[in-house]
């Protein structure tokens, strides 16, 4: 049972002060997991929007219902171009998400380290 006194103590020591210690654990555990899932879902949505699996499935089906050989050939060439463009776009987006995940990993460490370094420099120069 959580009594009012316990909840006040929990507010001060757990929610406010304790969160400082909880921060790195969450950031590199659950938080990083959430970012990975978000990036993966966004990439899956883009894969679905581009319909890459469908373009591969209909690779030999002519476009716009034109069934003569010339149209078939043109359709195939167009499909190659579009598939390549979409795959490149998907890879670029994938790299962007990977970079974001990387930034997520290094951001707190770099920011805190640089803050400490610049604080020392500031103190040294001001003294």
């Amino acid at each position: 049972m959580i009594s009012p006194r316990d909840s006040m103590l929990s507010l001060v020591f757990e929610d406010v002060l304790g969160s400082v210690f909880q921060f790195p654990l969450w950031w590199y555990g659950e938080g990083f997991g959430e970012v990975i899932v978000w990036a993966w879902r966004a990439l899956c949505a883009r894969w679905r929007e581009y319909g890459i699996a469908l373009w591969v499935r209909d690779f030999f089906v002519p476009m716009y219902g034109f069934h003569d050989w010339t149209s078939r050939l043109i359709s195939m060439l167009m499909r190659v171009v579009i598939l390549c463009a979409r795959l490149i776009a998907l890879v670029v987006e994938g790299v962007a998400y990977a970079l974001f995940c990387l930034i997520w990993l290094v951001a707190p460490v770099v920011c805190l380290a640089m803050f400490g370094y610049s604080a020392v420099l500031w103190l040294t120069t001001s003294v």
Partner: protein
Amino acid sequence: MSSSPSTISPCPTCQGDPHVALTCSACRGAAVYLPSPDGSLMWPSRMDAATFRARHLRIRTHRIFHAVLALSAFACVVSLPVSLAWSGDWTSFASVSFWQAGHVQVMLWWLGWSLACFLIFRVRLFSDQPLPLPTWGRSKQAIDIMETRIRQKSVAPVLDVSLHVHASVWELLERAYDLAKQVERAEVQPIHLFAAALASSAGGVFLTRLGASFETIRPGLAMLIKRGETGTNPVLSHASRELLLQAYLDAREQHRRYVGVMEIFSQTFSVDEELQTMFDAAGYPPRQVERVAEWIRLQELLKEEHERFAMLAALKPSGIMNRTKTSAHTSLVNQLGDDLTLLAREGRLRPLIGRTRELAEVWRLFESGRPAVVLVGEAGVGKTALLEEIARRMVEEDVPSVLFDQRLVSVSIPRILSGGDVGEAMERLLTILNEVAASVI
């Protein structure tokens, strides 16, 4: 209204007594547990004025702390560009020596970004947002996997239902507590929860939809809330705890995101026979009350579903051509038909309620290779609604593979016949059929 067959089990130490449970170290105030596919459900939160005050204080403290963090992070981060703009020396920003010169703004810049990281963590973990139900937004397959994992555990995990209730439920609980205290009851009974639910915004919608005024039911309700033992400091009764846990199961069954006020309202009404009699005497039969409550829940569910549908619809092409451009140009079909998939994508078609058996039959026929399905029935039975649901499912791409990346067009005979003689109409019909045939891969 649904009710779960699960049976409640009291804490072995305090035997589920709500007063003894206040000091029970085994259940820490939960008193009772309800087995569920998500684990053992419990409601540990205490119900008294001090707890509600502490909750308000906690929420307010978090909000103020987050606002201070956000302002500090913003001020620290912008101090560097502002000082550079002030001095007009933007070129130094790119030099390494600038970052090593010991400027206070550089220190604040890095402090600002560190605070921003901490703020992200705080908002994710310490905002007053409830947690969505573990099953929300998951496919049936994913839910099956999750349930199997829980079943395989030797000891069922304990799930705190109070973490999954909407903020409006906390307001309801507070009102119910105040009401029980006002009428000097020893326990907060389900009827107090019901009365508090009626006073909520959802309760107002319920009364309006039912065509009842609060004054009509007030005398009967005033008598019912005075049932039970008298006392000064009410605690959450065994029945109320069970009701909250059952409301969780109900919300889970309805694929809701959170446990809301209407789940509690429906559960209370379905278990309290005296309440049903009171409504019946006031001229509102229980079935009518249940239907209105279902209607409100359905509206809430549709709102939640709309978010999901809008997200999936954004992935569909916005034109008449399919994704892989395999369909032929269909000028007459476009001219005389209504593209239901496009209308569904734009959110102009209503979702179908029920008719799951008929829809499953349509899918089964398409999957078995039938080229066409004919829907037969009296006017008003829901043939058009079924078609519109098929169009919506095609937008969601939750359809058999034969309908994947296709469009559903509705062509009406009066439109083909209008503006010409019968011979021209027949010609138009044949052209439409030819265009459709040419579009099929």
